[in-house]
């Protein structure tokens, strides 16, 4: 017993004590898994409810702007970053002797358990990560029962961007029982699906993503009258939002919304 306690204390002593996260998605993974007091700062984006699913928890911690200078002054012993975080920032921090762990963005639902495990290991919270992975897998299995019929759907974002099968959003759509028309257009991951092509594909449902204040011409494609002129196409409005961005267990909310939408579309047909 005593030996066990000693080894547990050793593990704890081994775990990082001051962790700073400089990426929106590592913020959320760390907020889910970190021990109380272990995480000392998250990014400014995490404080915004438009971008972050965990605004309340995030606002309890001070925000950082992801710059090397301010992160260094927080005296972290571990920095959590994305693989697309500025290389200059990461190499600067490493040169200053700080350990940086980088997390790749999730491109599929199956990446979520991997990221949870990686975060559990980085924070020395393997047991919590394993429990979370088990409940994620169980919830996902319950949600993604195979439907009798798969409606054809398209995801469209600003500037005519769309997500194909090999992206997190595309995988959410697939798991919820939709076929993705972007695949018919030859779009594998994320890319441009021109408005003309989208109209000619005439999907059963168009799911649009937009949740930013202020005007941008980039969003004009979402309001184009050609979309509402399509007979037999249901415009599902603004459904993609912060739940879709990061590979964390909250992405299941997106799957749940899409399953509801599929039932809705089936009822209309």
């Amino acid at each position, binding site marked *: 017993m005593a030996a066990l306690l000693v080894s547990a204390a050793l593990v704890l002593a081994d775990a990082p004590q001051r962790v700073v996260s400089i990426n929106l998605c590592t913020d959320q993974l760390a907020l889910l898994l970190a021990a109380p007091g272990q995480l000392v700062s998250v990014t400014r984006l995490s404080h915004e409810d438009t971008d972050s699913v965990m605004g309340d928890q995030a606002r309890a911690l001070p925000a950082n702007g992801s710059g090397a200078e301010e992160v260094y002054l927080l005296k972290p012993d571990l920095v959590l970053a994305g693989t697309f975080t500025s290389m200059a920032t990461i190499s600067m921090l490493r040169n200053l002797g700080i350990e940086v762990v980088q997390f790749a963005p999730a491109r599929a639902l199956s990446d979520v358990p991997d990221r949870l495990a990686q975060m559990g290991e980085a924070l020395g919270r393997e047991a919590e990560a394993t429990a979370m992975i088990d409940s994620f897998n169980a919830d996902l299995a319950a949600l993604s029962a195979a439907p009798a019929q798969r409606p054809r759907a398209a995801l469209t974002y*600003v*500037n*005519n961007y769309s997500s194909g099968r090999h992206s997190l959003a595309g995988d959410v759509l697939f798991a919820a029982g939709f076929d993705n028309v972007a695949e018919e257009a030859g779009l594998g991951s994320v890319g*441009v699906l*021109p*408005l*003309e*092509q989208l*109209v*000619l*594909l*005439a999907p059963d449902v168009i799911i649009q993503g937009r949740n*930013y*204040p*202020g*005007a*941008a*011409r*980039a*969003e*004009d*494609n979402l309001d*184009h*009258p*050609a979309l509402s*002129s*399509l*007979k037999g196409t249901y415009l599902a409005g603004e459904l993609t939002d912060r739940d879709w961005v990061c590979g964390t267990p909250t992405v299941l909310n997106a799957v749940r919304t899409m399953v509801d939408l599929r039932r809705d579309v089936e009822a209309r047909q």
Partner: protein
Amino acid sequence: MKLTAFLICLCLVLFVISLVTGTTPVSVWHSFASLFATDGSPMSVVMQQIRLPRALLAVMIGASLGVSGAAMQGYLRNPLAEPGLIGVSAAAGLGAVLALQTGLAAAFALALPLSALLAALIAVAMILTLAGPRGAALTLILAGIAISALASAFTSLVLNLSPNPFAAAEIVFWMLGSLADRSFAHVWLALPFMAVGWLLLGSLGRGLDALTLGEDAAAAMGVRLSGLRLALVIGTAACVGAGTAVAGSIGFVGLVVPHVLRPFVGGQPSRLLWASALGGAAMVLAADIAVRVALPDRDLKLGVLMALVGAPLFLHLIYKTRGTLQ
């Protein structure tokens, strides 16, 4: 007369090519059948709601820019005067951006072209005041550069301050112009203002012809210079403002087209006005076809092509007129 017939035919041919050009290759016959179909099929939606307004806007904006360039050059008797170069387009872009970012355009659709028109009006008035009635080339170009730089800087500032993360990226659109994914809403928004502009600028023919003999001679012939100036200012602002509000600033059309057509009309400003309107329409149609053929799914900006054609000509004109630039 022969020139007019040729330009009309050119516009018609380019209009048809524009209608059958798109990201998805479809036969010409099927395209046209869909243009008049009322079955609501996907192809008919593409033809009627995406390609038709795009081709119409190319004609309207091209004609507006062509006639504005010809009118300004006629009035200032200076081949370098052009709405894009002298900052009118940049100012109109700033007006449009302000209307969009303050939410005015969302509350009241006409606020977009009106605000662009107002900003263009201020820019034209400033240019004409600075350059004076004879339009000294050096003053004109320098004043244009200053107004252009100022308006572009404010446009960038406003878009960078926007809470929308995509707003800053559209600086490119306002500076280079594009007709991608425009709809009939934009056609109806711009058309009334452009029509007023065309009528005003089209009515300047006699005055501009008289002006080629000098101001005194024109005055002796009964041309009221103050009236002519007012019609020019409002007409140019209406044309350029409405076009820029819906498609961004498309440069060099008003420079290239009158320059190419001037020898064919014997240097007569009244004939050049209408020829430039047709020529401008043909040029923007051709450029809009070219951007779609070159990079079908990238939304290459029209201004890129225009500058590739227009900037060398601009350099050539500066070289030719350098003796008078002192």
